[in-house]
């Protein structure tokens, strides 16, 4: 087999893995959009905030220590303990639930019945606030996140592909874990929404707020619930991305990567988020592989957007979105 093709295959596989990471973030968007019609720009920052909190709790950092030090001139930094990874994850999940509750209380409750675009802009504000809060609470330095996930080259795949093609593919074991986790997450979310009482309520709200209210579903509870789930999804995404490339500001930018995924897959479709993520992940890696060297590289910065844009011009409702019939 020609080398070029082998490399392209390896690139595609890595692209698919990256796509799964995009899907993880996109999933959080879809959940909130379905249940409340809010395009939650803050989803990426939620992931950053979750990862920061996880690292902070795990390493026993004192929250707001910078502010306290600045005000009182103290030298506080750490409680001096480290928590086991699982405990820290559970605590962070709790924090995310609390955050969801606060967001509902302080923001969403006051913006009921506003136009979607106003809500969208409110989430941009929320993103700024949470980004600042994360930095003020835990400090803005780059942190290493380690919850014991396997990392480094997957020997098995290397060996299999070497035997098959005479060239071993480099696949990060972390990416494989991420793929498995994403699959589990989607499966459990589907089970939850199809077979539990709250899942049904969630789907009812997604369909029609007014009708859901009239049969006695508490909109506010559903919103807290769905933001908690989105917070949890953000935590998972934060763990994966944080383990891969450290916890830092750029982590919040994965939200920007998830947006074209949503445009492609449709804002309301969970399978769309997954398939869209895979297409974008693979597409941008392949494009960079073939076209990047010719036009200066770093095409990942825009390729996903331009692809999604071109796609939307021909199919405005996305891959899996419902067809829009306009009425007057």
């Amino acid at each position, binding site marked *: 087999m020609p080398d070029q093709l082998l490399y392209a295959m390896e690139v595609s596989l890595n692209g698919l893995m990256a796509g799964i990471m995009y899907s993880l973030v996109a999933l959080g968007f879809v959940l909130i959009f379905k249940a409340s019609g809010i395009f939650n720009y803050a989803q990426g920052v939620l992931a950053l905030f979750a990862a920061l909190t996880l690292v902070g709790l795990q390493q026993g950092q004192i929250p707001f220590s910078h502010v306290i030090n600045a005000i009182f001139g103290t030298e506080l930094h750490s409680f001096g303990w480290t928590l086991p990874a699982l405990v820290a994850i559970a605590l962070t999940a709790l924090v995310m639930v609390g955050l969801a509750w606060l967001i509902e209380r302080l923001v969403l409750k006051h913006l009921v019945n506003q136009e979607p675009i*106003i809500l*969208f802009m*409110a989430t941009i504000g*929320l993103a700024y606030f949470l980004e600042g809060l994360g930095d003020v609470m835990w400090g*803005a330095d780059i942190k290493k996140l380690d919850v014991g996930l396997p990392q480094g080259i997957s020997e098995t795949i290397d060996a299999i592909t070497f035997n098959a093609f005479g060239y071993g593919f480099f696949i990060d074991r972390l990416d494989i874990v991420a793929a498995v986790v994403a699959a589990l997450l989607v499966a459990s979310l589907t089970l939850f929404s199809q077979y539990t009482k709250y899942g049904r309520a969630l789907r009812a709200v997604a369909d029609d707020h007014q009708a859901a209210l009239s049969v006695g579903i508490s909109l506010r509870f559903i919103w807290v619930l769905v933001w908690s789930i989105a917070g949890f999804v953000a935590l998972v995404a934060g763990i994966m991305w944080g383990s891969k490339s450290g916890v830092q500001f750029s982590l919040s930018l994965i939200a*920007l990567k998830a*947006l074209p995924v949503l445009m492609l897959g449709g804002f309301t479709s969970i399978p769309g988020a997954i398939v869209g993520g895979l297409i974008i992940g693979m597409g941008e890696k392949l494009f960079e592989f073939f076209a990047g060297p010719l036009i200066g590289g770093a095409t990942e*910065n825009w390729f996903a957007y331009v692809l999604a844009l071109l796609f939307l011009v021909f199919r405005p409702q996305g891959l899996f979105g419902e067809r829009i019939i306009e009425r007057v």
Partner: protein
Amino acid sequence: MFYREAGDFKTSYVDDSQTFPIRFDRMRYYAVLVLGFGILPFVMNDYWANAVFVPFLIYAIAAIGLNILTGYCGQVSLGTGGFMAVGAYACYKLMTAFPWMPMPVNVLLAGLVTAGVGVLFGLPSLRIKGFYLAVATLAAQFFLVWLFNKVPWFYNYSASGQITAPERTLLGVAVTGASTPAWAKYLFCAVFLFALAWLARNLTRGTVGRKWMAIRDMDIAAEIIGVNPLTTKLSAFAVSSFYIGIAGALFFAVYLGAAEVGEAFGIQKSFLILFMVIIGGLGSIFGSFAGAAFLVLLPVLLKNLLVGGLGWPTDLAAHIELMIVGALIIVFLILEPHGLAQLWRVAKEKLRLWPFPH
């Protein structure tokens, strides 16, 4: 009491459609003009020009531009930074290719080039609406920044990848370059802002403005009563980009002097201008001024307060600024989705009656 319209009768429709129909408003408008053009240029110094006035003037132009597109025509754009970059690079190429060209012409041409690019990226708005469009404009943002970063022709193959504004004079006074006096920077930008704000006001009070607002409020109904959505949306993109391009050109040539595209015109810039428009007031020219002033002054004040006053580290102050800006956006959207401009209108209503509440 302070605010009287009784006795201020209109006898023609021309009178009735003027910008400041109330005499008191008109007086204040003239007062601002006298202050802006008659007094400030003579007392301007470097600190005030660079920290407050010049960025305010330039951001106000950009905010009016975005307000035309988003506030009047209802098309949310997150590509403002990218379009500012187009203006900046167009201006740079013009300045270096035609050294004899007067600076105002460079700036205007840069605006026109940006208008063209804006129309190009506005084409999808015919098929894509709402968030989808907002996200699609990010394509413009990322693609344009990448383009200016990766294609050396745009930065004249300079080793640093930066663009630097050469000195250009107007009527014998430098308006760009290192030796530009503070008052010249200020006045150059102020004249542009004044002219552009006046044009924007004209556009938004007549036929064109009504077409834009009709598309914003209900695009389907607008089309059925005879508004061509293609030309209307594209005209909004063109005019908006023209303004934003001019803002970009001034930002680079007059304010920064040298710029690196990702840093000066990144996505953060898009959000900053959008916030100005939201906080100031969607669909209000005055709001664009107010929003720009607010977000230019806020960091200056916070920095003076936290770093200068309390001695906190700068990075901490920057993070707190993020929190405050974010919280303010939310608070504004909750309390007053129409922004500072609406607060001002409410205050005027109150003043009309004050001190007699009924």
